């Protein structure tokens, strides 16, 4: 069998009906990883045996007629910044190369309860800081559509793994677009839920007030299925909200009557690739043809998003990453003169360039004399950005926009220009600053054959409406069914 022709729902149906066993499915995935991952580099590490054992156990329970979880037998790949008890969790950093958490993240518990098979750990930019997987300390993930190009980031490994048919489902984390941007670059569906919808307990923190875990799949249904498992209150995360989780996949195929789609003029400005603009505008036309009302909205502070983000995120990161100091866990430098030198040498050697740059930036923004001008100022503009959205969502149900200004860029293209790299997050950052849910779904291809993503954003906790709106478009188009040609590098 091949994953590339099957949706998550197909696979679930086949598993349920007995046409397919989890062992077969997991074997297929593992074989595909073996065949292609040397070239793609989506996975940092995985173990065949535990995954197969888990699959066999689920098959056995299914045969015995036992009750099974919502994702029973489906493989899920996990971004390597989410802790699982006894599984190395590296954050693609030398600092945590050998770190083995003694506990499960909340979402790992949820996945285990749902009888998902934990397939392996996917690559990312170190500590989720980056947009290209170029900042991984261990390997470069390549875009399955064009291996000269990045898969996006930071959850590039998770996006590439789904695109390459190595897993039907994967998990990422999104701090400034780290799920939606790689989803767009790799031509898959990726979603960032409302802040507080999914527990962050066990997600290695990058920027705590922005981080959110979310799902990847080949289609909106797959993402909805996975989100149903991930979402929900967790008393171990003070920022997790105690609110009912709707059955997102239940009414997914019912079109929304009177859907109001917002278009912000601020999103269609200089720097946007014409083919991306064309694809997004065509997608809006599809909604129009489905009877949706298209309204122009204004988000006057959106041009400040990147500036706000690159103060808030590094400030929080500088604090969150202070704990990696060679004392209680992780890397410690071999040579140092004394205690303080041990700290500095450890951190100097253990972190990569981009991480150090952001720690420096954040430390500076919080330091005496600069706090008000940078950090406090950024928090105030952040509120104005949120207020823009609050006003817009009084007028419309979802806002449609590009995910990224361009399709996937080439490996090495932006690595020496951090600011240019940061500006590629311009469309995704505001959802994190405002705490909104956002989804990225395929809406076309560039003339070079690269996927283009459509972003839909909604008001907080409107995931159900957001996913139904996304599905409305998906039903009318076939972009999501296209797969990259996977020329195996191994003889077959």
């Amino acid at each position, binding site marked *: 069998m091949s994953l590339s022709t099957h949706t998550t729902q197909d696979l679930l149906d086949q598993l349920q009906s007995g046409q397919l066993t989890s062992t077969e499915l997991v074997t297929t995935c593992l074989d595909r990883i073996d065949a292609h991952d040397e070239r793609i580099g989506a996975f940092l590490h995985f173990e065949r045996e535990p995954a197969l054992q888990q699959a066999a156990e689920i098959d056995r329970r299914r045969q015995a007629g036992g009750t099974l979880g919502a994702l029973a037998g489906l493989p899920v790949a996990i971004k390597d910044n989410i802790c699982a008890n006894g599984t190395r969790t590296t954050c693609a950093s030398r600092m945590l190369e050998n770190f083995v958490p003694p506990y499960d993240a909340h979402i790992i518990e949820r996945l285990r309860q749902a009888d998902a098979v934990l397939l392996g750990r996917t690559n990312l930019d170190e500590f989720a800081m980056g947009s290209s997987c170029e900042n991984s300390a261990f390997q470069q993930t390549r875009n399955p559509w064009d291996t000269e190009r990045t898969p996006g980031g930071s959850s590039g490994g998770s996006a590439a793994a789904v695109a390459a048919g190595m897993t039907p489902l994967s998990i990422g984390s999104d701090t400034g677009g780290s799920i939606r941007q790689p989803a767009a670059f790799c031509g898959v569906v990726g979603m960032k839920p409302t802040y507080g919808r999914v527990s962050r307990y066990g997600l290695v923190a990058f920027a705590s*007030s922005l981080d959110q875990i979310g799902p990847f799949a080949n289609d909106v249904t797959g993402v909805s299925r996975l989100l149903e498992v991930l979402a929900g209150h967790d008393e171990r995360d003070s*920022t997790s909200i105690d609110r009912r989780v709707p059955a997102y996949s239940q009414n997914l195929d019912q079109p929304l009557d009177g859907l109001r789609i917002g278009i912000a003029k601020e999103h269609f400005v200089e720097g946007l690739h014409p083919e991306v603009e064309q694809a997004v505008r065509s997608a809006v036309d599809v909604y129009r043809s489905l009877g949706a009302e298209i309204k122009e909205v204004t988000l006057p502070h959106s041009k*400040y998003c990147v500036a706000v983000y690159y*103060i808030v995120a590094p400030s929080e990161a500088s604090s969150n990453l202070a704990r990696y100091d060679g004392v209680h866990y992780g890397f*410690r430098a071999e040579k140092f003169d004394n205690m303080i030198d041990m700290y500095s040498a450890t951190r100097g050697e253990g972190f990569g360039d981009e991480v*150090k740059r952001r*720690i420096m930036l954040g430390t*500076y923004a919080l330091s005496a004399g600069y706090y008000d001008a940078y950090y406090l100022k950024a928090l105030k503009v952040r509120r104005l950005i949120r207020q823009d959205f609050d006003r817009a969502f009084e007028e419309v149900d979802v806002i449609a926009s590009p995910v990224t200004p361009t399709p996937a860029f080439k490996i090495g293209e932006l690595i020496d220009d951090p600011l240019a790299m940061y500006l590629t997050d311009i469309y995704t950052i505001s959802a994190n600053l405002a705490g909104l849910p956002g989804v990225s779904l395929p809406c076309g291809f560039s003339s070079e054959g690269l996927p283009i993503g459509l972003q839909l954003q909604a008001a907080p906790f409107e995931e159900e409406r957001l996913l139904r709106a996304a599905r409305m478009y998906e039903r009318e188009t076939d972009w999501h069914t296209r797969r990259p040609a996977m020329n195996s590098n191994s003889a077959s």
Partner: protein
Amino acid sequence: MSELTVDDVKKVASLARLKLSGDDIARYQKKLENVLSYVHLLDEVDTSDVEPMAHAIEAVNVFRQDEPRDSLDQAQALANAPQTDGKYFLVPAILDEA
């Protein structure tokens, strides 16, 4: 403004406990200054009556009950440490006694 001197970069590196080479410092100085001057875009926004927004959601009073949970055992607590004696985390001598 945004004049980030080499001394500023050294001071920040010391605060952040990052040992940087001379080359690193020069590189970081340039790149950080780029970002900071971009951030000064915010100066044009009037924020005089705006409350800072530190959280993405507005929730208050999140508490846990004062009920014990299992702790890790000693071996688990120390398992990831670079240096221990089986009971304690070990670090190079801390010198603060005169």
